[in-house]
């Protein structure tokens, strides 16, 4: 056989694919990460259950939630599937509507009237602490030195107060109302978020792409919010999900203390509080809202845990 001549002109480009994925596809691919993990899927279904219940309650409940039309303190029966409360109102209807203030709507007084904004108190509160905490944490982590010392020492001093005391102080100072609860949740959550954001910033700011941004003389704000923040997004969002759980707890606690969201709309915490007095005759009034709170919180925790695991694996 004759010697084979090399065939140098064979073109060999890199495997060509079409341009980048569209936005929709990217959204779907980040959503599909939930279903990679069994834990996250279970959590997701639990949360979705309550969101669907809440949405349904906006248009339909078995009975009007604030109307006393039944016998008081009934156990579950065929008419009132979950029984009735101490004023003879249908527990199922109240439970369904209770989802709204937590997850779906916020009532804001405008003059004499009250208007409802979308998205619930717990979520607004967490968004507030996320914004405030991320901002402070990023400055502390990226600027370092005195900024870091000042911000973190102040936040640590703040953390030294039990959060329930902070809630009480805020409510005592500003009165009751959805906005006040949001404010209280945002303030008490911010130090934790700030710590997480600071540690993520410290880690990410050692990467070369941050050096690259600095060597083209980008402003500190650009580096913090355009270079670092997008890469800290994952862990911050997972943390925020857990925090929504805590916030729901906090609202429940406030409601139980009689300081929560103002009546007449039911919220789960005040439902427990009202039913507490009759607990030894009919425990149902306590059990249902407690179950609601815990299942939503557990669902959020599972979702957050599963997502965290998947994200960690994803990043590796």
């Amino acid at each position, binding site marked *: *056989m*004759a*010697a*084979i*001549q*090399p*065939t*140098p*002109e*064979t073109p*060999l*480009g*890199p495997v*060509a*694919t*079409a*341009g*980048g994925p569209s936005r929709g596809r990217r959204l779907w691919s980040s959503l599909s990460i939930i279903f990679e993990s069994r834990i996250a899927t279970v959590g997701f279904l639990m949360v979705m259950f309550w969101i669907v219940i809440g949405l349904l309650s906006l248009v339909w409940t078995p009975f009007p939630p604030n109307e006393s039309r039944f016998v008081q303190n009934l156990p579950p029966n065929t008419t009132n599937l979950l029984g009735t409360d101490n004023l003879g109102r249908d527990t199922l209807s109240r439970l369904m509507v209770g989802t709204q203030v937590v997850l779906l709507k916020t009532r804001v007084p405008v003059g004499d009237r009250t208007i409802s904004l979308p998205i619930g108190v717990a979520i607004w509160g967490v968004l507030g602490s996320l914004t405030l905490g991320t901002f402070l944490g990023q400055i502390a982590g990226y600027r370092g030195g005195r900024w870091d010392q000042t911000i973190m020492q102040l936040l640590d001093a703040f953390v030294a107060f039990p959060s329930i005391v902070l809630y009480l102080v805020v409510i005592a100072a500003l009165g009751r109302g959805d906005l006040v609860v949001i404010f209280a949740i945002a303030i008490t959550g911010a130090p934790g978020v700030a710590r997480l954001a600071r540690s993520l910033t410290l880690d990410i700011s050692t*990467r*070369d*792409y941050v*050096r*690259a941004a*600095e*060597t*083209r*003389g*980008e402003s500190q704000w650009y580096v913090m919010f355009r*270079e670092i923040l*997008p*890469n800290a*997004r994952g862990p911050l969002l997972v943390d925020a999900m857990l925090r929504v759980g805590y916030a729901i707890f906090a609202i429940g606690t406030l409601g139980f203390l009689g300081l929560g969201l103002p009546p007449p709309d039911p919220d789960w915490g005040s439902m427990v509080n009202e039913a507490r007095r009759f607990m030894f005759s009919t425990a149902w009034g306590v059990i249902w809202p407690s179950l609601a709170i815990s299942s939503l919180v557990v669902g959020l925790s599972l979702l957050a845990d599963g997502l965290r695991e998947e994200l960690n694996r994803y990043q590796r």
Partner: protein
Amino acid sequence: MIASPTTGPRMPVLKVENLAVAYKIRGGEVEAIQNVSFEIARGETFGVVGESGCGKSTTAWAVVNFLGANGYVKRGSIKFQGQELLGKSGEELRQLRGDQIAMVYQDPMQSLNPSMRLGDQMKEVLTVHRGVSDAEATRRCVEMLDRVYMPDPAAVLRRYPHQISGGQQQRVVIAMALLNNPALLIMDEPTTALDVTVEAAVLDLIAELRRDFDTAIMFISHNLGVIARICNRVGVMYAGELVERATVQELFADPQHPYTQGLIRCLPRLGADKAGSVLYPIRGRVPPPSNRPAGCVFSPRCDYVQERCRLERPELRQLPNGTFVRCHFAEVIDPAAWIPSADVRLIPPPAGNGAGAPILEVQGLKKYYPLQGSSLRDVVGLGEQRFVQALEDASFTVHKGQTLGIVGESGCGKSTLVKTIIGLESSSGGRAEFLGLDITGDLSDRNTELIRELQMVFQNPDATMNPSYTVGYQIARPMERFGTVPKGQIRAEVLRLLEAVRLGENYYNRLPRQLSGGEKQRVGIARALASRPDLVLCDEPVSALDVSVQAALLNLLLEVQQEYGTTMVFIAHDLSVVRYFSDQVAVMYLGQVVDIGPAEAIYAPPYHPYTEALLSAVPIPDPAAQQRRIRLEGTVPSAIDPPSGCRFHTRCPRRALLPDGGRICEMEVPPWREAGNGHRILCHIPLETLRDLPPVITVSP
């Protein structure tokens, strides 16, 4: 302890036949390695070489049954001293591993438990596997540490891993592996994380121990130079298959497989420069295990590919000269007749492109980092302020259009120098001028025009790009920021740059995670060029990449430099790469430039004693090359309290050349000695004496 070589046919210590390892993944499994066969005899070092992702480590893990939860041996057999290892129970294997097979990994810090004293970790090997008493174990540990040339072994036993240097850690790991006198030692890139001088000493040690203990060694490395220095026989792995198996002499003198030939062509020979030679990268890249071609695994990248290669997978077969090769056409391929494909041919830079005007002038540049003491006096601010003298008296000039290469061991101030020049750190003293403008301050002291002219290429391909943004955005950003390109033309300009770094238009919308390491590095280069800078600082841009990617990238940098007339400062620890790429070379030691001059002058006598030692340590991918053996003792001293006089005097092997054993080196800072043609050496030894030293490396034709 020296065993005489037994005569006659010897039973191999390890015999691997037709090994296939598969990993279960979601939706099926992939075969990471296929049909791997080799054997290792007593007292022999078998090298396994190949690019990353070719299955080198998987082969080693299969031998020690360390494949993880989702990996298993699918086919084949692994015989250790005649016993079949496959199918043995976990407990039997565990006994065998601790007793007879030992493994040394790349990063010593990950093999040593940071919370245990070294003595306790080492003794455990003996007390657990051999039931040796504690006192006896201590005695043998000390003996073994002594054997691996560890200074003061008894004291080392009481230390924790972080208290000794990286080279010493690797010595401890090797000593630990040898404690049970294993029949087989598997070393997975044992020197990759070490500096060249330390690497050379560790390789010497491994070679010596192999002779003395008559151990069989399986040595995995991506570095052909290291393989050439230490191995008897070599297996070349590509995409999960062993494609060539030969003695080390045969492999380098007469490589049979096109992949092996390609690998060798990728490497700059020490002494080769860009004017006289060209590197030829292998086109394409290693296919992932899930997507290997049906025929010969190398066929998509092979220059000699025929129809048969695409259809039929070749078997590993023996050639008349004893080499095993997995290629249909090994006999008829003549590497001498190889013609590089058109797209990698480079026009060599115009010879003698006279030095342009000086663009960067650095005089006595210093960078001290203040050190926070821990005593009470320090805390209240009364203690004496101490400094890490990361950069002390760096002086050099870079001319327009030229490349200055900077070499030195880790911790010698290379990166600090670059950070100071680019302005990530302000300097503590000295003078630095870029185009006549002062650049001793940090970025906040510089105006946008100046910032634009200085850009940087980074080392780590995985950190050089922001994972959140597309390639196009990241290259466009400097253009927007500096306004070098009118808004409407940015996209076109980005595409042109992508073209210049040999990436197509379809990369514009990709995210970094869809890119390979080499591609990310290309984007990093494009981004640095986007502001059309006059000076680009490259901090080890190729050291994290495989050799074929490295060759392609070096070519790219050369091309870019020619096209844009960019001046470059190029840091690398690989002396062959620096020699190939640079016009001027500066050798740094402990924050000082000790040897500077034209590249060819640095690599020939007269040498600075440190340069000489570095050159002697470089692993050369040519077993026939003669290299004088000079080994430095100890490690680079601390930059907090650098040695007086000449900073190199504590380790200098040439001090004896001076009268009085080189007392003057400890007392006085050495003078610059002009060796002509701009070559300057910082040394007390007279130039005439240095000139008389023979060259370190002689390559026999």
